[in-house]
């Protein structure tokens, strides 16, 4: 009966022809034409399409996309009538999962298959599961910024693109670990390399690149980024994303739940990378002193990740190692004789004795450095006129515990000085030690540093401290010693490390590399003993401690105000900021918030706080959906509880963040 027409051309069984294109939304694609009625179920239509195509293939991921309505027809038991589908509908029969290129927080690109049909929230969750990042609710996707094509096309080196499109993740809970990585990464050398890229920090960027990359010069610039967030409650297809498009994966909500170095290697690393780029590109401002700490941590992290000591703390238990040697010694002696000084020997502490030149800055003195015989034992530094007088009383003895140690080094000038600021009941006394060469300097410097922390050279970290100092000196030689303020190209990074790659460009302008190196070294001494994950965690913590941390800026116009202002959204508060000056005008905390409403028609967000404080504003730089989602997202994140683990209340999230079209 199907296909029989009446005289007017209508089909007698009220069936009609439905044209479905096969493939993604390419109008040139092949198409099949089916006869359907309004009562046909979507499932039946799918079956017919597959029959029509007559190709053997796994069609299970395919579904129908209705282009005009921007909607997937996913309810297979719904009829065409129920969808309101008519013959003029442009339908595409295509895969629900399509490849996209993801720009990770560490700025590397990764191709993988993402769901184009699920709400973004779910799509991100499955991406994160694939990348083994816990707590996907903290992340989201952004559109990549539009490229300015006009600028130099000659040199854009083809970057390495990791591919995870072939990896299929078995359903189930947590991917099992295999050879220290989630099992799905261990299939091939390629995916293994991809896991290393994900879980290990990247080397510092080329300083030249760093200078080229766009940096926000004002608060207004910082609002740009936040206009690009995708909508969590709609799918990628609905938001105009096409297969092969580039998207950025970023931590969106600055509220990191239960960060655990053991279970979160990828999450920790990517968060570290995001923090690092955030600071290097001056998205979050910090002071000079803070930047030096960040640089030292980056240097340390890079060193550890290069040497392949991933995750594990170095050594078993510092302090036990040197005991080992001592114990062997003890055993031998105990078996031999009952010598009573065995333990005295054990407790002896290595000391340094040498000729050094010493300078004590005083008022009204013109004396320079003078040669002395210097003995460094335990945490005490004593100096004598000459070696012969050493058994007697020293000219002066200083206990370095709690002192400040400042390096004053110029490798090219062969100047190796240690400035000590030693506390005493009367105040601080300053003394400068001048060493002859790198080696001597490294040993004395390491001793001084340990002593300032109350430890002696018997401490197991002494040797590594010496090595670290030597390494840093060599860095200075290759880094910035020669050409002064000219940053070097990437070719130099093989040997030493360019300190310019560790600091934001404004410090590149402010300091010469050889000024920067000792300051980074100085900060490094406090972090030198950290393991890779500890150092990453420390970096993230220091980042979180910055006053400007975790504020997402949007340009808004408050009701009743005539000028644009900035609204800062943080994980616990909203901040009204003067656009021109940057001053905080007013802060409202989420904990005092009673409700918020979005009027989608006039694009206005209205918030009511305790004590009948009402605030309303319209959004200028980003859609009010983004502001709404930020607020709802933070409220959602604050409801998370440790007991619930990783289980996600997706409905609540969508309820809190969804726009009116979600209902």
């Amino acid at each position, binding site marked *: 009966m199907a296909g029989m027409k009446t005289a007017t051309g209508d089909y007698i069984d009220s069936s009609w022809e439905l044209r479905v294109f096969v493939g993604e939304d390419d109008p040139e694609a092949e198409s099949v034409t089916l006869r359907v009625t309004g009562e046909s179920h979507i499932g039946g239509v799918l079956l017919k399409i597959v029959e029509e195509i007559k190709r053997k293939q796994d069609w299970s991921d395919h579904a129908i996309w209705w282009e005009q309505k921007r909607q997937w027809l996913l309810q297979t038991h719904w009829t065409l009538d129920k969808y309101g589908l008519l013959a003029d509908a442009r339908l595409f029969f295509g895969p629900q999962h399509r490849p996209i290129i993801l720009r990770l927080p560490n700025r590397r690109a990764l191709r993988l298959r993402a769901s184009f049909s699920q709400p973004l929230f779910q799509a991100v969750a499955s991406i994160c599961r694939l990348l083994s990042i816990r707590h996907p609710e903290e992340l989201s996707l952004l559109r990549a910024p539009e490229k300015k094509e006009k600028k130099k096309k000659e040199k854009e080196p083809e970057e390495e693109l990791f591919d995870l499109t072939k990896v299929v993740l078995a359903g189930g809970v947590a991917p099992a670990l295999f050879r220290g990585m989630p099992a799905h990464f261990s299939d091939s050398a390629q995916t293994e390399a991809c896991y290393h890229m994900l879980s290990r920090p990247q080397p510092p960027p080329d300083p030249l690149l760093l200078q080229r990359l766009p940096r926000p010069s004002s608060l207004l610039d910082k609002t740009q980024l936040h206009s690009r967030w995708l909508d969590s409650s709609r799918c990628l297809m609905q938001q105009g994303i096409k297969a092969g498009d580039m998207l950025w994966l970023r931590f969106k909500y600055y509220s990191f739940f239960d960060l655990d170095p053991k279970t979160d290697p990828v999450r920790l690393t990517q968060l570290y990378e995001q923090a690092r780029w955030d600071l290097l590109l001056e998205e979050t401002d910090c002071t000079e002193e803070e930047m030096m700490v960040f640089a030292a941590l980056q240097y340390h992290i890079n060193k550890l990740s290069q040497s392949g000591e991933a995750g594990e703390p170095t050594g078993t238990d510092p302090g036990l190692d040197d005991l080992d040697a001592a114990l062997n010694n003890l055993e031998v002696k105990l078996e031999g004789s009952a010598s009573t000084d065995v333990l005295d020997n054990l407790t002896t502490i290595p000391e340094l004795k040498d000729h050094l030149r010493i300078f004590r800055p005083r008022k009204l003195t013109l004396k320079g450095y003078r040669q002395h015989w210097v003995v460094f034992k335990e945490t005490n530094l004593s100096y004598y006129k000459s070696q012969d007088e050493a058994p007697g009383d020293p000219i002066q003895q200083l206990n370095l515990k709690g002192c400040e140690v400042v390096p004053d080094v110029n490798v090219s000038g062969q100047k190796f000085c240690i400035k000590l600021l030693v506390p005493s009941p009367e105040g601080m006394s300053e003394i400068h030690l001048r060493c002859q060469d790198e080696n001597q300097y490294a040993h004395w410097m390491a001793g001084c540093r340990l002593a300032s922390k109350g430890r002696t050279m018997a401490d197991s970290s002494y040797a590594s401290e010496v090595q670290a100092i030597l390494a840093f000196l060599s860095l200075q030689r290759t880094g910035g010693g020669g050409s002064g303020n000219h940053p070097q190209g990437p070719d130099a990074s093989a040997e030493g490390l360019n300190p310019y790659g560790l600091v934001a460009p404004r410090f590149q302008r402010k300091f010469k590399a050889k000024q920067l190196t000792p300051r980074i070294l100085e900060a490094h001494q406090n972090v030198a003993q950290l393991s890779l994950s500890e150092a990453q965690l420390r970096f993230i913590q220091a980042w979180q401690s910055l006053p400007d941390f975790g504020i997402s800026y949007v340009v808004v116009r408050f009701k009743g105000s005539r000028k644009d202002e900035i609204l800062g959204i943080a994980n616990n508060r909203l901040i009204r900021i003067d656009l021109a000056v940057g001053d905080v005008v007013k802060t409202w905390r989420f*904990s005092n918030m009673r409700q918020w409403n979005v009027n989608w028609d006039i694009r206005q967000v209205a918030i009511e706080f305790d004590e009948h404080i009402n605030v309303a504003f319209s959004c200028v730089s980003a859609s009010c959906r983004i502001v709404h989602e930020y607020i709802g997202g933070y*409220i959602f994140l604050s409801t998370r509880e440790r007991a619930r683990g990783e289980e996600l209340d997706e409905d609540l999230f969508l309820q809190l963040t969804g726009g009116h079209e979600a209902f």
Partner: protein
Amino acid sequence: MGESNEDIDQMFSNLLGEMDLLTQSLGVDTLPPPDPKPPRAEFNYSVGFKDLNESLNALEDQDLDALMADLVADISEAEQRTIQAQKESSQNQHHAASLEVPDFSGAVALGYGANVTAVSVSQYEDDLPPPPADPMLDLPLPPPPPEPLSQEEEAAQAKADKIKLALEKLKEAKVKKLVVKVHMNDNSTKSLMVDERQLARDVLDNLFEKTHCDCNVDWCLYEIYTELQIERIFEDHENVVEVLSDWTRDTENKVLFLEKEEKYAVFKNPQNFYLDNKGKKEGKETNEKMNAKNKESLLEESFCGTSIIVPELEGALYLKEDGKKSWKRRYFLLRASGIYYVPKGKTKTSRDLACFIQFENVNIYYGIQCKMKYKAPTDYCFVLKHPQIQKESQYIKYLCCDDARTLNQWVMGIRIAKYGKTLYDNYQRAMERAGLASRWSNLGTVNAAPPAPSSTGLKTGTTQANGQIPQAAHSVSAVLEEAQRHAETTQDKRPVLGNHHPGAPRAPQLPKSSLPPPPPVRRSSDVCGSPATVPRAKGLSGGFPAPPDDSLPPPPPPPPLDDEDLPPPPPDFNDAPPDFVPPPPPSFAGAAGSPLPPPPPPPPAPEAAKPPPAGVKRAPVPPKRKENPGPPSGGGSGEQDFMSDLMKALQKKRGNMS
């Protein structure tokens, strides 16, 4: 006084003689006797006691009694150790002898003039819990030889571990002790012995037991630099001996025991520090009251995240210029990394700030009467200096605030930036301690926790402003409230602990289920709740009303011994030092005579003798006494363990060799 001093001298020389005797007896029994160390030990003692003698004039009789009691306890330990060493040495003589040495050589003498007297006491028993490596002792001891060859490696490893452990313990055996004179707020003083490893918290606990105060969280140790006119609160985690070691010999600095509500003000009213709108006075009143739930969440947000949040603090302060008496007004900002100021002509954005000081090497003090001394604009000054600096110096930084409120905010802010989460941990421990005390004082009268606040004043999600789409309206507070309620119900379900369990560590005032569990209570329960003394605290309800200073129960001098924490000597104790009269066991007569409710019976003997809850399995050492559970204790006889372990290991080694 002179006479009593002579008596004391006499007593001490007796004591010395006794110790000497013990050492010598050890020397005689251990066969290869050329042990050069005992004389050195004696030398150390004499130095220590000389210093002590100098300062004895300042001490009161009861202090001396307490001191003597402490010393006697040490002697008895020494004696017991000797006995054990003898037993061991009969098995394995020369090893024992050689290992005995550092015990004597480690004593260090320090003297601190009138206020603080240092005594060096060679320490045999660990007063504090054993080092974290202790669980090693749980390992089954290597079985006696002969041993299968296949296990040889394993055994060697075990032995190496043990020796390592032994060495660590040897290091620990060198324990320095100070006698510290603490000024009470009723102008009396108390002397107590402070172990090198004791933290301010331990000393406070000790003082709680001695003074029968209400143990609330405001009690603190307080150091006053008389000369510099600065003072500060000891942080609970600070090592007391370390801090005092920075004082000069002839210092007039003092340690006080008093209540300071500034100590943990931030945890009681976090909104005053975190939500204070600078310059906007109108918000002040509303800020000051905040319900407990919001305080809770504010604290959690600030102290329980991945990193703590330092209060945002900025404003103009006066800075004393180096070496001058002039003050310059500058705009300062507090950040987690230090104090910064805005250089002339710059803005207060991060990139323009100049670092004024970082906190790593400085402590924060209140400046007292700076107006008079340094011509400061106001008397609300705070001071930053390296703890070792004791005299006027250009390296001491003086800053001056406009009012007391600002001063408190800065001092607290700096403490938060400097100490971080430790401060919160300290507070929680102090709360536990206070909660414990208050539970004892009103058993059965106080509810464990107030019921969950009713959800009145909540707007549900259906409330909407006109003209708006209903679905978009969400009640934030409803969500938050629900989470909160959930937290509190779990809290309510916690059983009220009975009075038979003095060690119950949670304070009922701390409804905080979503927080990480409190740090493990470091000491065994019998230390913190000596049940005989705590219930005497009076005037306590569920909260922590600070009693007026004069209502502090003047410690009734329970003759002849003020030292409640000294345990009743074990039965066989009395005959140990023959020529020395030990103090009688602490009698409860004094307490019973007071109008206070009769104290509960002293803890049953088996309880007192119980090993610390860690359940350290002891090596089968010769039978030993486990007396001295009084504070600070808990570690028990770790030294014995290591000695016997070491011995075992060595024996086995020899067995394998032959």
